[in-house]
């Protein structure tokens, strides 16, 4: 999923200072799962904002809506009936959702309520960890199913740097060394030999190196 965290209250209040009526839009997908921008968080932020405005002797009228998927134009369309009453929109989706609204409602200011962080997984209750950087040319088959790009602090493709210590990364003893994990996996699979294959320099064009990316599925395009 895409993970995100809510921005600090002060920053959000600052964005909304000039307005009296806003739409606060959550999303039912990833940000719901990571407890950052689902229906529940929309309710909490809405109350917090109204309270903060009240303290400053002002009022803020908040219309709360949580869409099924904010990155999908079909669902964003549901805002049409509410958009005119609002002076601005605050989105509690990931950056994709925020942009979808901005693209659809060209004359309405849209503010992100979240900092979108990474593509990751839930490690345990309340803890999310980065797992993939969307490089566009997955190498997990070579590395025992552990991503050296997202999980090694130096995105090394050919093995651990000289700082790997007791299974931990040199950057932070709380982070597992990706290459220790890869090595342990390769051993468990009896694929130690695979480590000896030199992995060639990556072609970053499939990643961010080629500029903004696009997928076109001819079979689906209407």
């Amino acid at each position, binding site marked *: 999923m895409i993970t995100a965290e809510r921005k600090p209250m002060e920053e959000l209040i600052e964005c909304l200072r000039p307005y009296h009526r806003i739409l606060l839009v959550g999303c039912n997908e990833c940000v719901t799962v990571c407890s950052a921008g689902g229906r529940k968080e929309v309710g909490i932020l809405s109350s917090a904002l109204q309270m903060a405005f009240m303290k400053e002797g002002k009022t803020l009228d908040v219309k709360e809506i949580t869409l099924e998927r904010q990155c999908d134009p079909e669902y964003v369309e549901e805002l049409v009936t509410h958009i005119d009453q609002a002076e601005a929109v605050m989105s509690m989706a990931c950056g994709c959702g925020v942009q979808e609204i901005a693209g659809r409602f060209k004359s309405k200011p849209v503010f992100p309520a979240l900092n979108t962080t990474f593509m990751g997984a839930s490690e345990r209750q309340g803890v999310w960890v980065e797992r993939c950087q969307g490089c566009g040319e997955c190498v997990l088959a070579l590395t025992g199913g552990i991503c050296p790009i997202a999980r090694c*602090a130096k995105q090394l493709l050919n093995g*651990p*740097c000289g700082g790997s210590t007791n*299974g931990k990364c*040199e950057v932070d003893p709380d982070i597992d060394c990706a290459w220790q994990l890869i*090595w342990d996996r390769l051993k468990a699979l009896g694929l130690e030999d695979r480590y*000896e294959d*030199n992995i060639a320099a990556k072609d970053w064009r499939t990643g961010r190196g080629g500029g903004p990316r696009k997928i076109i599925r001819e079979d689906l395009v209407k």
Partner: protein
Amino acid sequence: MKTESVLEKVFASGELAVTSECGPPRGALAEKIIEKAKMLQGYVDAVNVTDNQTAMVRMSSFAACVFIKQLGMDPILQMVTRDRNRLAMQADILGAYAHGIDIMLCLSGDHPHFGDHPMAANVHDIDSVQFVQMVRDMRDKGRFQGGDEILNPPKMYIGAAANPFADPFELRVARLAKKIKAGTDFIQTQCIYNLDKFEKWMDGVRDRGLHEKVNIMAGITPMKTVGMARYMKKRVPGMDVPDELIKRMAGVPKEKQADEGIKISIEAIERLKEVEGVKGFHIMAIEWEQKVPEIVERAGLLPRPKEFS
């Protein structure tokens, strides 16, 4: 011979090679680098010039190498993948070679987290193994990494690092093998304090015959104080300082600790000379370059061969 470099010639002659290092200054101070290099002149075959060591901004390795070259010495251009993408790296390699710099050390580098710009983007376009491969292909195929032909390809003598003390230990010989496969000509190891572990690693290296494919230089760093020894043990990732060494340093009065540190280094060199496959020593006296001549001399590594440079 693959190159014209002094280091390749020294290895070929069968003599133990000796290198040391200079950290460029944190300012536009030519005299600092010249002063440091001069202390080493005549005592080493070539001088490593670090590249934003510990992720702190310093004068570029390339510029500092040029100053050292102008002294008639042989610099080793260190380069890390942390700060440059493959275009910038290859551009600097061409420039350096055009200035007569023909030895380099290919590293991934410490993470920016450790330095004075922890907020900087870390590039890591390629890793150290791919870096070695790139420089080898530039030399042997005369091609840029992107595939185009190079006019007058740089003939670099290629070095890489090895840390026998980092984890997982069982992978460390295989990691060396990958660097050799990529085309490294020589290896400079992490500072060796745990000699038993180093020798165990060398056993693994010899078992695979890797010592015949690459010239391994043992890394030696003298300790100034027991405080430094403790700091290295605790704070420097991938450094293995045995407790006996710390005890030994702590056992002598403060004013004698520096001498003890030098003695420990010399003993290490003497012992490592006997290890089959060790082809030289890389003496890194950090901000203590003036001690290198004494170590080289007392370890019986003088005179340095003159005919090659």
